């Protein structure tokens, strides 16, 4: 963690510098074929403004969550497994952030994916956790395949293009010292558009963007600390990071940009609506994560990669804070159902305050962190509305999501913390966790308050501006559009106000069964029937296919494998008689082998050379 922060400080002090260390893993010389200039794969680390920003997030939040876990997981039998998997995840995430080329990026990308799978299924005895892990893995896999196809497409497109006559020959390293790849002479725009869309698909899978969003709410089956680290602050942000890196180093075509804006803006609104009705505290926060990731994607689509990453930076802190505060509540009362809680404010002052700070930051109320970054996004996108008429609807969607965000997060706060006591009297008496759980809350609260103000620090501002190394529009910090800011703050306050009227002071608002809004509520609770739809597709189309492949696997492939096994079994029975255990016998084998080498070297070799006339 210290190292990560130091690196970031170094970047702030000497803006615009970057460090690239790499070794060549595989090099193919130039040859006729798809890669006339040669092809190489490199492994390396690249520290530049973009990655140093991510590095701070990953290491700081990672450290705090690990600390918190000591208290949260202390009585769990799987503790060693938990820490092993979390450490592997952190290592992979750091590698992903520092990767200096697309292929290495993809390797670590898969590694964090598999860690996420392990950790969602951490309570694997629970069927719901196991199936949630499977779901997360399969849905992100769709994105991963798209991403891999995108990489292939970029590889083949840039086989002859790019700096030094072939990006492929140089290992596809994200190059700082070259011109942007777009528009590139010789590269086909249609191909690049498709490649960009494939990358977007990968990012959508990882960052749970529409229509691959279904897995993230279910991923809440894992321990809350996992949700805080992986499914709020870091791994799901990897998709956003990928988009940012791609937009800076690869460039997107205008069509790609429109698609990204559409996905981001729509997801921001879409996910927020589902959070409005949900009774589970963790899932409410999960939907808000999807929605906030939508904002980041929106900003990147509009050409402001660094604004998106700035929101990622602040979001990581306040979202981890919200999750850890929620974890504190769950730890204390043993349920995630908001409607059973209530009045926790009295017993858990620190947690209530932390959750409130996180909520204010999320709702975009100044001076909390979320305000600055969310405002930057809205202002930046607003300034680009002239680029394409279709930007308008998505901007409006994202803008109205501000209201929903403020409403649902404070609905959760009022339900859990305000009122006289728990609505369900069977709940155990609430209490704060041990100090290892309180310290991260305090530290993250501090970050949630001041992380947005970092933008007034010249070095940090430099970092953000320098991040748009090659392309993109250099943003202005902080956002300058005062009118826009006031509207969004007003919307946020309005949302909080509505939440207070409906749920404040222990009130419980319930819709009449005959209310005309009732069908809408059911639609939202069932998540727009997306999951049911996916299940149906899976059952109808995929299952018969799976049966067929299973048949082939069982009888054709397994049959071959068993035959081989019998063959080797019989052979090894005979071979084991050689294993006498006598040192002298082994020495005899060694000498015999040596002699065989002599024979090869002195007799067979010269004979072959003489016969075939080799060199």
């Amino acid at each position, binding site marked *: 963690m210290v190292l990560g922060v130091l690196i970031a400080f170094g970047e702030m002090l000497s803006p615009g510098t970057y460090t690239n260390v790499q070794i060549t893993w595989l090099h193919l010389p130039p040859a006729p074929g798809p890669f006339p200039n040669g092809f190489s794969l490199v492994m390396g680390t690249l520290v530049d403004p973009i990655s140093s920003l991510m590095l701070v997030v990953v290491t700081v939040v990672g450290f705090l969550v690990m600390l918190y876990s000591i208290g949260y997981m202390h009585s769990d039998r799987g503790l060693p497994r938990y820490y092993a998997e979390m450490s592997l995840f952190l290592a992979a995430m750091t590698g992903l952030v520092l990767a200096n080329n697309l292929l290495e990026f993809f390797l670590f990308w898969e590694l964090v994916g598999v860690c996420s799978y392990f950790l969602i299924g951490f309570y694997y005895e629970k069927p719901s956790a196991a199936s949630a892990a499977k779901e997360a893995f399969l849905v992100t896999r769709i994105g991963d395949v798209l991403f891999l196809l995108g990489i292939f497409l970029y590889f083949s497109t840039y086989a002859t293009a790019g700096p030094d006559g072939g990006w492929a020959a140089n290992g596809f390293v994200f190059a700082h010292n070259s011109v942007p790849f777009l528009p590139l002479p010789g590269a086909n725009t249609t191909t690049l558009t498709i490649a960009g869309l494939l990358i977007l698909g990968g990012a959508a899978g990882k960052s749970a963007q529409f229509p691959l969003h279904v897995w993230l709410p279910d991923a809440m089956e894992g321990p809350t600390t996992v949700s805080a680290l992986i499914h709020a602050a870091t791994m799901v942000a990897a998709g956003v990071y990928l988009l940012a890196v791609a937009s800076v180093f690869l460039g997107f075509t205008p069509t790609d940009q429109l698609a990204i804006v559409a996905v981001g803006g729509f997801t921001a609104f879409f996910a927020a609506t589902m959070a409005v009705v949900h009774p589970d505290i963790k899932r409410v926060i999960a939907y808000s994560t999807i929605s906030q990731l939508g904002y980041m994607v929106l900003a990147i689509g509009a050409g402001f990669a660094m604004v998106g990453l700035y929101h990622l930076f602040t979001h990581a802190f306040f979202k981890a804070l919200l999750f850890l505060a929620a974890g504190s509540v769950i730890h204390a009362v043993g349920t995630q159902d908001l409607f059973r809680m209530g009045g926790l404010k009295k017993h858990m002052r620190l947690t209530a305050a932390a959750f409130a700070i996180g909520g204010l930051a999320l709702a975009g109320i100044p001076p909390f962190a979320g305000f600055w970054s969310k405002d930057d996004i809205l202002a930046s996108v607003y300034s680009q509305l002239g680029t394409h008429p279709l930007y308008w609807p998505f901007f409006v969607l994202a803008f109205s999501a501000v209201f929903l965000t403020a409403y649902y997060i404070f609905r959760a706060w009022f339900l859990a913390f305000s009122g006289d006591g728990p609505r369900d009297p069977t709940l155990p008496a609430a209490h704060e966790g041990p100090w290892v759980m309180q310290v991260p809350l305090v530290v993250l609260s501090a970050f949630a308050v001041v992380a947005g103000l970092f933008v007034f620090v010249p070095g940090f501002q430099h970092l953000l501006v320098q991040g748009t190394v090659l392309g993109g529009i250099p943003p202005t910090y902080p956002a300058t559009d005062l009118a826009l800011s006031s509207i969004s703050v007003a919307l946020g306050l309005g949302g909080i106000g509505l939440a207070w009227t409906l749920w404040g002071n222990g009130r419980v608002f319930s819709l009449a069964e005959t209310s005309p809004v009732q069908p809408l509520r059911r639609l939202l609770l069932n998540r727009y029937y997306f999951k049911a739809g996916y299940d149906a597709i899976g059952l109808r189309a995929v299952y018969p296919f799976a049966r067929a492949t299973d048949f082939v696997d069982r009888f054709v492939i397994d049959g071959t494998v068993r035959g081989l096994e019998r063959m080797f079994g019989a052979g090894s029975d005979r071979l084991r008689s050689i294993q006498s255990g006598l040192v*002298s016998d082994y020495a*005899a084998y060694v*000498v*015999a082998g*040596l*002699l065989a080498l*002599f024979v090869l070297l*002195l007799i067979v070799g010269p004979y072959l050379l003489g016969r075939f006339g080799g060199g």
Partner: protein
Amino acid sequence: MSLEELAFLALALVAIATAAAALLVRELVHTILWIAIFFVDLSAIYFLLDAPFLGVLQLGVYAGAVTILLLFGIMTTRKRIFSRESATGIGPVPVALALVTFVFLVSALGELPPSTSTIATYDPTALSENLFGPNGPWLLLLGLIMLAGVAGAIYLVREGRE
């Protein structure tokens, strides 16, 4: 035949004879005696090759330390020092393998020019400079391996192990 060649021939014959004798005698202490003579003989060959430093080293390490160590091993592992080994049958396969190896090695000598040449001599000072200069890493490696060897040996003979 020059005097040096004559000396070498004699030393070589003694080396082969003592090595063979060391392995063929039935009494282990006699083996140690023969092998001590073998080591001294090799050191004489080093002197003949104008490598006095190596000769002294051979005398000290092999004829001295290694011989004593081997003797010590015999003393600690048997109740009576002068006791005979039971005869072991010599199968045809090991002898054949050893012979074939020898023949192969000698046949490979045919590739070399048989001419005689002057022996290069080196100053021991130059040797030590070389050892602590370009070949320094080897010396370091030797030190590490010796350390590991000592640690391993102590671990192996530690009392109270199962």
